[in-house]
């Protein structure tokens, strides 16, 4: 049987089956289905990545025309990332959802939505027909919505879910405009029509068409200023869903942008600058807001925006490289972007799962209430630490490799660039460095406050490490994080085919990394191995010497103050105080003060601060407020009196009947006025 058909059959079978299973088996069945489908799609994807494109044609209906399903190297790369994240995330979810077994009806819906989420993500990667693509896209939005609102008894969760739903439909509107435009001009819904139309109407039309898709996909990806749904949706969802959303759902936006670049082939230089500009803003804005967040998951959500920015910088450089015909810049940029897509999926899912463990143990996500967890949950702490170092782009982990590629691309570009572009390149380098530095500030804060020091709040329940099986997927992902960091060459080999898609755009046969740029990676391997070895040697020497000396335990030196309490510790807010003083002008800090302390004798005081997104206020809140106040003027129409409503009905019916009757007369009248 054909793989694509069996993929769909397994999906339908699972959806029918799951409602009839016992609570305990629902999750396992859903996971089993995902494993089967992962294997099915994985086989094709691995083939495609080694150069054998997979094509399949559904006969479709008279509306859609032929439906092509096509897996090329780019789809394959994203499908493999998807598969890995879903395999690990689903496994983690099995254990994470155990505590919710009391709500069977939600579980059924959740599990079905989970499978649908996976299938629609795969569908978006492979479908080549715009109508079917839109269906898959809508399915994706809806299933993600259902998985987000799992804890729907909380108002905040529902609000976040609906916010997401509305914004994904705005994204769909832009998609539809783009597809309808092309279908109207060419009469075909196939993706090839995009290429035909764009090549026939090169120039501004192609750019506007691309921008139409770009806006739509960047809403999904969370590029600033289309990011506002993201910091709400991530904290609302269960942890494994947040991990998956941040790992792959927003990456599907990146996939869309890359796919449209391949299909539309707009003026690459212009598009490159646009993408680069937006990405730099996203990167900086994301991390700047991440630093001041108190909610752990929100912090990670803003970091997703930042990392999408880094990926976008890679894509931007790649486009500019294509535009100027410099293939080394192009391949470095795209390689950095594609590798960072994988890398971010890896470390961000570990971070979300680790935070999920923390939430399960403490039932809070407020960073200020945590502390000293490394003693209770050493494994979670170590896994979090490794991913935190990786996300800051610090060697010897994977984040460094992709950022290194992007830096190298930028410096290559700098060498070739004219005055204007060299300034753009330097600004990009500056912002990438700033992003790295700010990420370090943010993650030293997160790790330091959550896991180190003393507990800031005592919990009634016992805090303990989660089971080993629940930690197993985290270990698996961490192994990959380390191995990409140490053996980048191995993983870059997988990128050759997807890169060829881009670099062959200009019909110049070019094998990326031929010669110089690829050999870069070999010394890095040696450097990383040497570094790890060095750490071990120093540690062993230290251990040998320290064990000879006497060491004692004492309380922390409090500068002669002998009765410190955990409350005297530095808090997350105070850790970033000097930062938020400097960058305070870029964002709004809504602070609410209750009792101020007056007088000589201290009374009880209270201070509360809430970080708030300034862009969200300008782009979402203010327009909505003015729209509402405008619409409020028509409230007198809806006055609750039955007579008025009957009147509206009659006016409506009369006008419906009369307008056709008097059509000719009205036309004559208009003509008469015109002649005047």
């Amino acid at each position: 049987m054909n793989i694509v058909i069996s993929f769909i059959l397994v999906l339908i079978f699972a959806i029918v089956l799951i409602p009839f299973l016992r609570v305990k088996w629902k999750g396992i069945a859903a996971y089993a289905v995902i494993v089967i489908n992962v294997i099915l799609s994985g086989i094709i994807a691995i083939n495609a990545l080694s150069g054998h494109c997979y094509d399949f044609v559904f006969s479709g209906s008279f509306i859609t025309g032929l439906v092509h399903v096509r897996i090329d190297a780019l789809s394959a790369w994203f499908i493999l990332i998807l598969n890995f994240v879903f395999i690990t995330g689903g496994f983690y979810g099995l254990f994470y959802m155990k505590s919710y077994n009391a709500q069977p009806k939600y579980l059924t819906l959740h599990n079905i939505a989970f499978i649908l989420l996976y299938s629609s993500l795969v569908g978006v990667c492979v479908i080549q027909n715009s109508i079917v693509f839109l269906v898959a896209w809508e399915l994706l939005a809806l299933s993600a919505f259902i998985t987000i609102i799992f804890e729907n008894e909380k108002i905040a969760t529902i609000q976040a879910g609906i916010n997401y739903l509305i914004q994904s439909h705005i994204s769909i509107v832009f998609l539809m405009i783009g597809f309808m435009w092309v279908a109207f001009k060419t009469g075909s819904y196939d993706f090839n029509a995009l290429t035909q139309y764009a090549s026939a109407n090169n120039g501004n039309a192609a750019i506007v068409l691309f921008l139409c898709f770009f806006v739509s996909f960047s809403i999904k990806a969370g590029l600033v200023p289309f990011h506002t749904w993201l910091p709400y949706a991530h904290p609302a969802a269960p942890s494994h869903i947040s991990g998956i959303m941040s790992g792959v759902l927003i990456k599907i936006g990146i996939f869309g942008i890359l796919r449209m670049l391949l299909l539309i082939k707009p003026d690459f230089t212009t598009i490159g600058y646009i993408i680069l500009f937006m990405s730099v803003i996203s990167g900086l804005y994301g991390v700047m807001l991440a630093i001041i967040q108190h909610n752990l998951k929100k912090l990670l959500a803003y970091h997703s925006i930042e990392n999408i920015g880094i990926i976008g910088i890679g894509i931007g450089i790649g486009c500019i490289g294509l535009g100027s015909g410099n293939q080394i810049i192009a391949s470095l940029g795209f390689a950095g972007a594609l590798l960072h897509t994988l890398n971010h999926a890896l470390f961000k899912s570990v971070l979300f799962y680790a935070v999920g463990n923390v939430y399960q143990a403490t039932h809070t996500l407020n960073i200020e209430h945590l502390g000293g967890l490394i003693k209770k949950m050493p494994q979670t702490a170590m896994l979090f630490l490794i991913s935190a170092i990786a996300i800051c782009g610090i060697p010897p982990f994977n984040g460094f490799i992709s950022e290194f590629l992007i830096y190298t691309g930028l410096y290559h570009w700098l060498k070739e660039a004219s005055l204007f572009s060299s300034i753009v390149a330097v600004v990009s380098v500056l912002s990438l460095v700033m992003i790295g530095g700010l990420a370090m500030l943010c993650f030293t804060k997160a790790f330091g406050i959550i896991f180190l020091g003393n507990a800031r709040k005592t919990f009634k329940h016992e805090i303990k490490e989660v089971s080993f099986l629940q930690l197993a997927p985290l270990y698996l992902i961490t192994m990959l994080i380390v191995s990409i960091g140490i053996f980048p060459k191995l993983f870059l080999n997988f990128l050759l085919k997807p890169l060829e898609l881009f670099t062959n755009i200009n019909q110049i046969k070019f094998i990326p990394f031929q010669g110089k740029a690829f050999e870069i990676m070999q010394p890095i391997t040696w450097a990383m191995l040497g570094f790890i070895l060095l750490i071990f040697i120093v540690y062993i020497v230290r251990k040998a010497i320290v064990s000879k000396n006497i060491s004692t335990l004492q309380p922390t030196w409090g500068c002669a103050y002998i009765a410190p309490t955990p409350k005297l510790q530095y808090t997350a807010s105070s850790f970033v105080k000097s930062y938020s003083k400097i960058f305070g002008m870029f964002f709004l800090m809504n602070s609410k003060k209750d009792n101020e302390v007056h007088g000589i004798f201290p009374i009880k005081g209270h201070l509360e601060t809430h970080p708030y997104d300034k862009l969200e206020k300008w782009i979402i809140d203010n327009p909505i407020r003015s729209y509402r106040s405008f619409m409020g003027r028509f409230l007198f129409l809806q006055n609750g009196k039955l007579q008025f409503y009957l009147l509206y009905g009659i006016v409506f019916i009369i006008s419906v009947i009369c307008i056709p009757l008097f059509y000719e007369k009205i036309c004559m009248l208009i003509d008469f006025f015109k002649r005047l």
Partner: protein
Amino acid sequence: MLSILLIIIAGFFFTGVIIRTKSIASGRKGPGIFQPIKDVVRLFKKGAVYSETTSIIFQIAPTIYFASVVMAMLVVPFGNSKGIISFNGDFIFFAYVLALGKFFSIISAMDTGSSFEGMGASREALYSMFAEPAFFVLMGSLALLTGHTSFQEIFQDLHLGSYISYALTTLATFVLVMIAMIENSRMPIDDPKTHLELTMIHEVMILDNSGFDLGLILTTGYLKFAIYGALIVNLFIGSFDIQYAIPLFFTIQFLMAVSIGLIESFMARFRMNHNAQFIVVLTSVSLLIFFGVLLMLGKFI
């Protein structure tokens, strides 16, 4: 290979020279040049006191901090001879490896649960973030000037010829000296001799370290100075032969140590909340270098 030996040797006397300069400037006789090394050796022999609050992070952090700086040292070249590790873009590796050490020194300070050390950690994280852009822009402009992206090739091709290049090298030296001061938490940013924990940065972060670990941290500080000194030396000795380059290396390192001693003797520490502005100035200076390079390459107009 040569560079490592030279840097280690320079590390031996660098901090001693600073301290000696400061004591002479203030009219004291002062300790011998090798006193800092003797201190470290004594610390290595001593037992340690650990805080009850700390965890494994506190134990491994000094090791990783030290290892990261040694790793950065391996990348630095010496004139014509490469560092042990050398590849295109190795200066990115250099900066990021140092960042790993910083990451660990920050979280190890937070591991103690002390409010003072948290304060130091917060400041260190912020200031090091501001210092890095200057380094990257500086290296970027040098890469643009020479057309290479590895330390050794950049320095080898850096010929001093025109007046602009003299100006650029002067500015680059200034930027590197200042980055060295910030990275090592020295005077304009931080005062290692201050006696109030509230105004310290680096010193307050290592309040709870003792024994071998403290020795490692101090050694790392000495090496860091020597590494940045070596980078500055490399700006000048590009194509010199070894018999001239080595004496020049030690002369420049010595001069740098003396000038740091003099700066520390005659300058007051900046107010803590003005530090950020000061460090941004560094980035601007490095941008000035960048525009100078554009001017040299004729990219204006």
